[in-house]
């Protein structure tokens, strides 16, 4: 496929985490019993009018600032007209030609270093409801509508077609999610639909400056699916071009099960949304003062935090990157650090044991059963020689499983490290006596033999022996025997 290069742009929708919906006082929370977070306004009953939620604008400004956008002093709302049963007014209040923000960017790390991806625009709009089908949409005898999500505020963030590989697209989407999460304005959970990604992709001969005919891919429900869908679509388009065919401009849907993209609707079938200015809402004026106020309240963003971790904590760039990939991980790390100020040690544990167990149990770090205080306590137990590093991992697992404090686990399971030299000496003498051949090997200079002997001591102490003491006593024991 060396002759072609893909050109990718992403349209990302993020649900804003406001208390109430964008145009009415109904709750904007996720889930809930169907049709319980509703009122006449979000139901679009005859006669109702929208009133803009100020918090939505504040959050959108926050995102725009975090993404280096220019914020419009004057923007307006428009109606996007189309019929669908999850859209009670049969139009969506959105922004068309005067969006809230434009001309932004974010930076991603690629094989060839940092790359800037342009952000064309950010606008605010209302979400639609959810249809529930029995089976599939085409075979269901009837559909049910849940309007809880109707009117939940959405941010639409459109990138420039600046990405040149599925990996770059993934890096952009992940970075965007991370930045948005850092600002705290959205949960950005793809599985709950609070982050949705649509991809525009075309291919062109390498070196060409012209854009090829693009397709839009919808129904991409994870970052992994994004990469797979793009890989498939790029391959499909290249194959068509190599065969001398032409790409049809259309919207396609990603079939996760089959691993293919399928046509959804062609350009000819595309909706004419008949956008026009929303007459029920006056234009939105965002003052410089307001923007400055929001700017002052903006939290530290991923790149700044990463740099700080390297600069202040002396962490390797890799560690800093991992720890700042999400706000929650960084917050956890810093909470530990306040109680146990050894950055690299904490980093190793957070990236190592904690990450492993969180992954294995599919747990969010915010819900981690091991609290930062407990991890700090455990690290202090190691420092004091109460447990060995190895035993500490066992203790950590137990704390993760039960939520009990490390001290309690150590005590209950008798995991206190054995530092009593007399007791250890007895065991070591037994090990030396029982393994004459290994002892002989060691004497002949086979350093590895010592490791085996240490292992034997550990085995009979159930891992609780202090390794440094064992090491010293073993060597002494073998030498003494020689004399």
């Amino acid at each position: 496929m060396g002759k072609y290069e893909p050109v990718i742009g992403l349209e990302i929708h993020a649900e804003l985490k406001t208390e109430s919906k964008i145009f009415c006082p109904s709750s904007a929370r996720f889930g809930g019993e169907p049709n319980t977070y509703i009122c006449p306004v979000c139901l679009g009953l005859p006669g109702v009018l929208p009133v803009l939620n100020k918090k939505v604008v504040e959050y959108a400004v926050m995102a725009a600032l975090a993404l280096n956008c220019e914020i419009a002093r004057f923007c307006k709302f428009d109606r996007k007209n189309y019929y669908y049963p999850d859209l009670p007014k049969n139009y969506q209040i959105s922004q068309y030609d005067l969006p809230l923000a434009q001309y932004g960017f974010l930076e991603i790390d690629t094989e060839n270093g940092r790359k800037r991806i342009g952000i064309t625009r950010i606008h605010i709009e209302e979400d639609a409801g959810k249809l529930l089908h029995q089976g599939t949409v085409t075979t269901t005898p009837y559909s049910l509508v849940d309007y809880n999500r109707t009117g939940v505020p959405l941010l639409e963030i459109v990138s420039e077609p600046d990405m040149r590989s599925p990996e770059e697209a993934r890096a952009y989407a992940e970075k965007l999610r991370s930045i948005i999460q850092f600002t705290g304005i959205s949960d950005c959970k793809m599985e709950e639909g609070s982050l949705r990604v649509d991809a525009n992709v075309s291919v062109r001969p390498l070196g060409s400056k012209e854009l090829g005919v693009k397709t839009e891919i919808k129904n991409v429900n994870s970052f992994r699916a994004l990469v797979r869908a793009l890989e498939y679509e790029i391959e499909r388009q290249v194959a068509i071009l190599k065969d001398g065919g032409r790409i049809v401009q259309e919207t396609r849907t990603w079939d996760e099960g089959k691993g293919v993209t399928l046509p959804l609707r062609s350009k000819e079938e595309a909706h004419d949304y008949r956008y026009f200015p929303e007459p029920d809402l006056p234009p939105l004026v965002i003052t410089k003062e307001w923007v400055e106020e929001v700017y002052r309240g903006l939290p530290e963003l991923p790149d700044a935090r990463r740099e700080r971790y390297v600069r202040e904590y002396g962490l390797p760039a890799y560690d800093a990157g991992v720890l700042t990939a999400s706000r929650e991980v960084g917050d956890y790390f810093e909470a530990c650090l306040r109680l146990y100020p050894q950055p690299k040690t904490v980093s190793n544990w957070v990236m190592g044991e904690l990450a492993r167990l969180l992954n294995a149990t599919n747990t969010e770090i915010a819900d981690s059963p091991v609290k930062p205080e407990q991890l700090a306590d455990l690290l202090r137990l190691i420092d004091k020689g109460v447990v060995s590093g190895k035993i500490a991992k066992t203790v950590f697992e137990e704390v993760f499983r039960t939520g009990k404090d490390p001290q309690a686990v150590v005590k209950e399971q008798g995991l206190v490290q054995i530092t009593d030299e007399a007791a250890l000496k007895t065991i070591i003498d037994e090990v030396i006596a029982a393994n004459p051949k290994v002892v002989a090997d060691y004497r002949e200079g086979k350093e590895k033999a010592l490791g085996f002997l240490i292992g034997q001591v550990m085995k009979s102490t159930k891992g609780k022996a202090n390794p440094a003491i064992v090491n010293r006593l073993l060597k002494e024991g073998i030498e003494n025997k020689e004399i």
Partner: protein
Amino acid sequence: MDLCRMPAHELGRLLRERKVSALELTDAVFSRIDAVEDKVKAYLLLLREEARSQARAVDAALAAKEELPPLAGVPLAVKDNLCMTGVETTCASKILKGFVPPYDATVIERLKEQRVVFTGKTNMDEFAMGSSTENSGFYPTANPWDLKRVPGGSSGGSAAAVAAGEAVTAIGSDTGGSIRLPAAFCGVVGLKPTYGRVSRYGLVAFASSLDQIGPITRDVRDCALLLNAIAGHDPRDSTSAPQEVPDYTEFLVPEIKGFRIGIPKEYVAEGIAPAVRDVLAEAVHLLTRMGAVVEETSLPHVSYSLPAYYLIAPAEASSNLARYDGVRYGLRVEGEDVVTMYKKTRSRGFGAEVKRRIMLGTYALSAGYYDAYYLKALKVRTLIRRDFDAAFERFDMLLSPTSPTPPFRIGEKVDDPLAMYLTDICTLAVSLAGVPGLSIPAGFAGHLPVGIQLIGPPFTEGKLLRVAYAFEQEAGITAKRPVL
């Protein structure tokens, strides 16, 4: 003492002096309804029992010497495009048959605070689209002055009810003349307030940038009282204005010396019936005699009002009426899939005029036509607004006929939409400019009432009411009532 002919402010006084009870008044109005409604057909729905219990509650409060608002206990009719909790609201459309709103429009909420007695929901052109109430999805309303003629529209039911004694006051809505025209045709007072003066929350939208709710009353004082009750900012309507609401009755002094009144020559040009011209000339004569300075002026772009209006209003309507799809309320005609259901429901539910405007508006907003039609119309609207701004630099207010003709015969214009649209030629520009327009009875063409329209700068309703009041006192026209 004919309770059904008196204005609200007099009835209010009788109620407070306990010379008549609210229940007696309500019963008198319903007796009148029983007597004439068969001929007039002003109502779509009567709230007889509810009205009687509201009246009893007012009587109890009066007996307990409670201080009550001026319109308490006075029977009022509501146009059927305002939402009222628990009361079917159809906009005279089959598509909304059976729709019972779970909430009150802000205006209804404010009228409930006034403790008015609600008589019922009045007939109208379907979704307020029309000038004669013949476009009602259910039945036409007759003009109480001549049952063979139309009451005007779209608030024809409200105006006819007030004129016929079937309600003391009424609420209407006006998008291009829908309060002023029926007021003129029925010989009553009708005010379209400044856009933003009255909250639209709960008014079923026709054209959002033009719709305004306003009073229809027997005289100018009632109009001021009802405007007092309904005007003011509403946090639920982002287009409602934050301006303070004065007590409009304080403007009612019969003194207009030095008022500068302009007559736009475009509104006395061809197409205006001689009888209407005569009434206007007499009115000018009277106003001059009272000390006003009346001069001819010009609004150069108002001749484009009709095309501009018939692009903007249908464009907004095509979107506002999209929600009537059979999914959740009102009519549903089943189909094999959701799109077929939409099509069947809307085909059967909407009347011809509504369909015409939905198509017109959809076309005007379509890709490739937007700039040539909708956007151009918006530009024309700006020019019209500037015409008014310029005129108001020279004049306190403008004066015109409300309608180019007296009430026409039922059926006369139903097959000629353009002729019907021309009925609103004097009122459309006022709506496009967003300024207030007040229609008051000014005389007769034979047995038929003729109205004139006072037009002021934004938020000068008080001034308009003052001139109207002075004129009314001097002309003494409102004393005349139709015989049914």
